[in-house]
């Protein structure tokens, strides 16, 4: 279910849902949850199953229970589009979780910052923490290791007998790691790694380093 790794001699734990845990800070990092996406589609007449909406909250609860973090940082695209009733579910989730929450705003985060302030969620464009640069869009900056999202990375594998697989992954290179999308109703984008890049594949059961 999890895989322990080190980045610049600091320990991290990867979870197969796409969550990243930073034990030293007792902080959970999640990217591209896209809450409200199911409702957004339904509001516009596309009948995406309602249950998918509840699944996101179940997944959130499950990773929080697993790691018992002291804070959660969302690496952008927390809410998919404009305000809808899923926000009420989110409010309830926030009040139950009782943890400091922080959002690095992504391109989808168009809801007024005041709404987040009401829930005591701090919003930043980026966050620098012990040599790590936390952003939504992947970025390279001298002297920092970047943790980001946005891309929804997946990798294509091939094997003998013309076998192919496409799986979501954590995508790591020398100074950067891109998290997979945590949200239930989100797609992926196939990245083409270089030889020196590291890929951690996530499946329904586990995280596998390639």
């Amino acid at each position, binding site marked *: 279910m999890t895989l322990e790794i080190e980045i610049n001699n600091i320990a991290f734990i990867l979870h197969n849902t796409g969550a990243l845990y930073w034990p030293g800070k007792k902080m959970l990092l999640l990217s591209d949850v896209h809450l409200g*996406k199911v*409702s*957004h*589609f*339904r*509001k*516009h*007449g*596309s*009948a*995406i*199953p*309602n*249950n*998918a*909406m509840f*699944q996101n909250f179940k997944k959130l609860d499950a990773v929080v229970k697993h790691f018992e973090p002291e804070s959660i940082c969302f690496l952008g695209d927390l809410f*998919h*589009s404009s305000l*809808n*009733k*899923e926000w*009420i*579910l989110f409010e309830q989730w926030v009040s139950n979780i009782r943890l400091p929450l922080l959002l690095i705003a992504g391109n*989808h985060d168009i809801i007024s910052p005041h709404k987040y302030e009401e829930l005591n969620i701090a919003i930043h464009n980026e966050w620098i923490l012990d040599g790590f640069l936390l952003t939504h869009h992947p970025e390279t900056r001298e002297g920092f290791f970047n943790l980001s999202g946005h891309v929804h990375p997946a*990798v*294509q*594998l*091939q*094997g*003998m*007998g*013309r*076998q*192919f*697989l496409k*799986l979501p992954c954590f995508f790591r290179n020398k100074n950067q790691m891109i998290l997979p999308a945590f949200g*239930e*109703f*989100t*797609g992926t984008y196939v990245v*083409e*790694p*270089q*030889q020196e890049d590291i*890929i951690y*594949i996530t*499946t*329904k*059961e*586990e995280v*596998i380093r*390639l």
Partner: protein
Amino acid sequence: MNREQLFDLANQWFEQKGWKPFPFQTQTWTAFLQGKNGLLNAPTGSGKTYALWIPIVLDYIQKNPDYKTKHKPGLKAIWITPLRALSTEIKQAAERVINDLDLNLTVGIRTGDTSSAERAKQKNKMPDLLITTPESMQLMLASKGYENLFKSCSAIVIDEWHELLGSKRGVQTELALSRLKTIAPAMRIWGISATIGNLHQAMEVLLGPESQQLENSVMIKAHINKKINVHSIIPDKMDSYPWRGHMGLHLIDEVAQIIKKSRTTLVFTNVRAQCEIWYQALLEKYPEFAGEMAMHHGSISRETRQWVEQAIRDEQLKAVICTSSLDLGVDFAPVETVIQIGGPKGVARFLQRAGRSGHRPGEESNIYFLATHALELVEASALRRAVKETVVEDRIPYLNSWDVLVQYLVTLAVSDGFYPKQIYNEVKSTFCYQAMTEDEWQWILNFITRGSQSLQAYDEYKKVEIEDDGKFKVNSRAIALRHRMQIGTIVGDAVMNVKYMGGGYIGNIEEWFISKLKPGDVFIFAGRKLELYRTKNMEVLVRRANPTAKAQHASWMGGRMTLSAQMSELLREELYAANTKKMSAELKALTPVFKRQRKESIVPNDSEFLIETFKTREGYHAIFYPFEGRYVHEALASLLAYRISLLSPITFSLAYNDYGFELLSDKEIDMQQVLDNDLFTPRHLHYDLQQSLNATEMARRKFRDIAVISGLVFTGYPGKVVKTKHLQSSSQLIFEVFKDHEPDNLLFLQAYRETFEHQLEEGRLLLALERIQQQTTVWKQCEKPTPFSFPIITDRLRERLSSETLADRIKRMTALYMK
């Protein structure tokens, strides 16, 4: 006027033109004037248009004796054509009759190409005769007050009904007719169809099972027996004949000779990419054809296509390289010769194409068949027999297409709204929905009003609302607008418009092809070398490329076709003849190939079922040869792969063509175990097939169309860029969400059912398995690939099935790294 006088009028008109009416034409006039409905079985270019325009006009004259001085307003007749490109020709035919007979009737066209100004004008004042497409017909049902537009209509003609019958556009037509029967009870319904195997069923689908219309109906057959000569293009030396390769360019000189000898030649290719490549290759090798040769396929802009069609009629062209885009349509008199490149995969299509040549009285049709690889020559030989014996396939109508019903009900809700009780009876009266249960109907109503079956907290689903008096209505203008745009969407792969940077539309191309290109890359499209500048929204901006630049040909995914059951049988019979002395010219030409095949394996006869296994760099191949046609092989391959995967964890890549199928794996398949366990048994077929479907991706692909038609995915309207903020999603993703969260959704289940009923043809599969049971299995362990196996193992379009864990598979695989 009595009927005799009316007929005199029509006969005189024919005489003026120097024609004589065919018996099928006068038979149709009589039946129509008797108030009958019916199906006219007549080929393209036989005068079928006048078989129906004439009585429509005569009927008006009969009802309005003072027709020369007074005009009775309102729509009189609707003519539905599957291709909007044909509408101009149909209009011209109608206008010829009207003008010569001094009638003051107007003819209008309403298709996706009609301007909004023209549409608004039509709404104020409908033309007397309206020519339209199934999609535009639906769109009219989505406009307010549509009942008033149609109530005066006394006839509707569905042209080329065989083309619509086996498609969801046919279902759209069935539904529109069910509505019109109520609004315009005096309306006669007539279909026109080319010869297909199930003509009687075609009429039943059109008029509605057990309907009054069917009771009061007649089928009229044209019986035009034109002689069709089928020639195979066989090279002098067969040694060089390729084992695979779907282009057939090795016979380019033979093709050029045929073109030179004939006045106008239509060269039919099966796919658009092949069309582009042949056009380029001919121009390069025979520059003298420049200016006398053109290309015609569905992705080329309408203006260019219309120009080409006119140029054929004006005898300005020696040759046109085309695809099925020229299958239909009115006469091209100058065409003397037709060349078919690659297997046409259907006798009806082959006959239709052959019939495009030799249109003048007394002329014969000439069609040359060019086999693109060695085994296709067997198909050529089978085709000749099929033409001789007029073995024609069925077009299978769809049943319970929930996606089309969802679309239709929202359409009615968008215009004037509907009351379920009334519409239920109409829908139930169609062929497609005759077996629909009340529960299923209720499910559909819940789906369009609530977006699911139970009310849930925090739900904001909005589409159709139920008003206080029980009327189902769409009140949101945004939803109505999106729905109207969606109706016109032609289902297929996502297409993008190709335009010059300075303006000028060239045509459209599938998104997946463009996504492989980078700005600066050069590709050949519509016969031109184009450099990709950039893609934005749904547009591909290009500029003319340097003529010497290296370029790749644009390609399209669609259009893979399969052999029909009857054709497969003929093919098997032909092939089995290879072991006898009774060989056709084509088979004799194949002698070197058969010799090579026999070196490693055998050429099976009718009592043998051949299996070949061998190893290559790619892995372990197992090839099976039932000779049953592509769709049956698709089903057999996944069935067998599933059954083998139960014996031990294994992963397969599956490939198939019309002759056989392949299971490829990175592990050796224990063939003795396959034979010992009797894995070809017809027992538990249905269950195993269902299981194998869940394990492969076939249903997921079927779901694409369903998601678009039912409005789950919003694609926008082709050619128009629509703002769809945060509403983009792939049908694949939606399929996954349904699989995880709503597996009992009827639309989701429909994807599986369609794979069964339409693609896998379970009935044919059962017969195939029973036949295999009767045969002796011959398992050949070969050193290397055989000629028979070659076209299959080199096919890249593959299906996958696995019974291994993901983790196990990942361990043996590597990532595709950047080159």
